[in-house]
């Protein structure tokens, strides 16, 4: 008898083959699925308008995924997606793990934006919830700089006040500045000895306020030189300074009634290159042996070379710069040094005009404010650090906030 079960068994076998293959695949898939690394999404994604800008920035903050842990969490990074005006989302940025903020500077006023962020793992990306729709806003006034505005108004206001006070005839006391008092004597010395004066307005261009300060002093000095008929050499290292220097000296000779005595050769351009300029000036000093040397403006490493060479030829030297690194060299090698703000005060001091003297008093108001703030700040910082007194800590924090320059 033939096995009556063979055919059904055969049929079952044939039918079961695809099922078993399918089942294996399913098994494989589920094995694969269970071995995929899936990270939790980032949360609390918030978008806000960046304050005090022209409407071209939005700030995003989020809480990193709980799977984002050092040294070897599941998260390998983040990707940020953005939709503009309801359109499709596109990736705009990628971050390493642990990042939790971003500033999107490529936004425009009038458009609306929605964001979401993907936490990336080895195999997958998990999306956060989308943000609300946001429109960037333009602020017409940067309220974050109000403390700066107040300080500027106080100092400018005090300058205007003292200018007005001086114009009404009130005498304003300004202490004697030895270097400026010595200018007339120094020029007189050069005249008596029959030797020239050398004027060096620094090595920066007209966009540096120290150069302008040097040129304003040149204007005063030129008037005396024109009256005394003393020779002056002014080698410069910038072409614009050459032009301005010539105008200044020419005007001084004209106002002294001696326009014919002026010559363009008094002011010569040497080179923009720092040490090439110094070599040329040193050569002029050693050959021409000026009796008086003025070093007034912005100087760098060459300051000591110039000052020492001037000292070696026996010249009387009056120097002034607002670069603190060079002041020690001038003080060591020169006869008189204008320290920092004295350089800027020089033109006002020499002119004696009420309007100019008033501006010097205004500066003093700023210094008085700085003194008081420093004193209070030091006391507050000391008490806050040493004894943790809350009131002092709040004063310290207040000063830190208003005098911070970060945006």
């Amino acid at each position, binding site marked *: 008898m033939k096995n009556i079960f063979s055919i059904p068994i055969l049929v079952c076998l044939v039918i079961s083959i695809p099922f078993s293959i399918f089942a294996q695949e399913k098994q494989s898939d589920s094995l694969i699925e269970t071995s995929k690394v899936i990270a939790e999404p980032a949360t609390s994604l918030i978008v806000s308008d960046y304050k005090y800008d022209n409407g071209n920035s939005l700030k995003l903050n989020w809480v990193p995924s709980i799977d984002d842990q050092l040294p070897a969490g599941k998260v390998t990074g983040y990707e940020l997606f953005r939709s503009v005006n309801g359109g499709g989302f596109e990736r705009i940025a990628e971050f390493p793990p642990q990042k939790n903020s971003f500033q999107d*500077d490529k936004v425009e006023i009038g458009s609306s934006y929605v964001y979401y962020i993907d936490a990336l793992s080895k195999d997958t990306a998990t999306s956060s919830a989308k943000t609300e729709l946001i429109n960037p806003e333009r602020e017409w006034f940067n309220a974050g700089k109000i403390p700066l505005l107040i300080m500027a108004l106080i100092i400018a206001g005090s300058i205007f006040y003292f200018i007005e006070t001086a114009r009404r005839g009130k005498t304003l006391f300004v202490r004697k500045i030895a270097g400026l008092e010595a200018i007339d004597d120094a020029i007189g010395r050069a005249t008596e000895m029959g030797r020239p004066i050398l004027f060096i307005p620094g090595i920066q261009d007209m966009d540096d306020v120290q150069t302008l300060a040097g040129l304003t002093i040149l204007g005063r000095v030129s008037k005396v030189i024109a009256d005394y008929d003393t020779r002056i050499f002014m080698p410069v290292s910038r072409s614009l300074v050459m032009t301005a220097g010539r105008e200044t000296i020419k005007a001084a000779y004209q106002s002294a009634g001696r326009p014919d005595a002026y010559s363009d050769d008094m002011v010569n351009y040497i080179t923009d290159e*720092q040490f090439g300029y110094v070599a040329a000036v040193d050569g002029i000093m050693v050959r021409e042996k000026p009796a008086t040397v003025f070093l007034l403006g*912005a100087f760098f*490493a060459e300051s000591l070379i110039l000052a020492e060479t001037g000292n070696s030829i026996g010249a009387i030297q009056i120097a002034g710069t607002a670069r603190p690194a060079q002041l020690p060299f001038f003080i060591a090698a020169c006869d008189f040094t204008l320290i920092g703000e004295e350089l800027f005060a020089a033109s006002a001091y020499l002119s004696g005009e009420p309007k100019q003297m008033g501006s010097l008093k205004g500066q003093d108001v700023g210094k008085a404010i700085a003194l008081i703030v420093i004193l209070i700040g030091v006391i507050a910082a000391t008490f806050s650090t040493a004894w943790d007194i809350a009131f002092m800590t709040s004063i310290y924090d207040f000063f830190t906030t208003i005098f911070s*320059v*970060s945006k």
Partner: protein
Amino acid sequence: MNNFLLISLSDIGVIISLIVIFGGLLWLFVRSIKAKEVDRRIIFIFIFVAVAAPILFPITFQESATEVVKGVYNKIENLPAGSRILISFDFDPAMAPEVQPMANAISAHALEKGHKIIFMSLWATGQALLSQTLETVIIPQFPEKEEFVDYVNIGYKAGNEGVLNVIVADFRQMFPTDVNSVPLDSMPIFYNLKSCKDLDMIVSIGGGKPGPKEWVLFVGDPGNIPMGVGVAAVVAPQLYPYYPKQVVGILGGVKGAAEYESELVKNYQKFEDMETPGLRMMGPQTLAHIVIMSFIIIGNVIFFRSRRKDGTK
């Protein structure tokens, strides 16, 4: 011949130099008691010998890094691998002997830690010096590092603070390409790097204007980006007001370079045999300082002896 000498020719040179310098200073000191001024040319000769002798007959000293220098070192050490650091070469050949060693040491350290470096310069002369660093340090010591992936030279742009004002918001507006006209957008190192605010650290090496101070004022502080600075010794005092908040550390002059190099040599076997110009230059600096201090003492002796003479007259 050296096998028969107990000391090398170099040591003989050192001994002779030291005898000449200190013997000469002693002679001048004895003269100063008679209130005789010293001609400045004699001072120049002594300085020449004090600087030349340690260069010809190397004298080196042990260095250990101070906290100020360690600030920069530790920052680079602790940044995660792959961080992007911008190094700006803002100096000229005159300042190079003082600051190029620190530029080389910081670049080597950063690459060794696996960081990416963007090189640039605000000084026209800085580019040639940057090329020197690339040719003598980066390429020979790190042949496995790839340009555009691990480092790139985006070149020099004129404009001083104007350049900084632009790159703090957008690199590509000022540097659309690198120094060889390769677009920044095609470089992996610039992927997702829009402005200085995306950098992990900025190191400015220089001392003039524009330089480290301008970087702090226009980029580091407003953008809240960690900054390290390497400056000529004479400029270092100007940067101390910014330490440690706006700058994490300051390398000042040859000493700063020597201290940084000593940290590298101490902590990395790879750098044990590297050139250490900073450490080498401490020899001349030390002797020169001793000579200057001696002349200050001699000057004061002359001053007091003259005063006494005038007083007895």
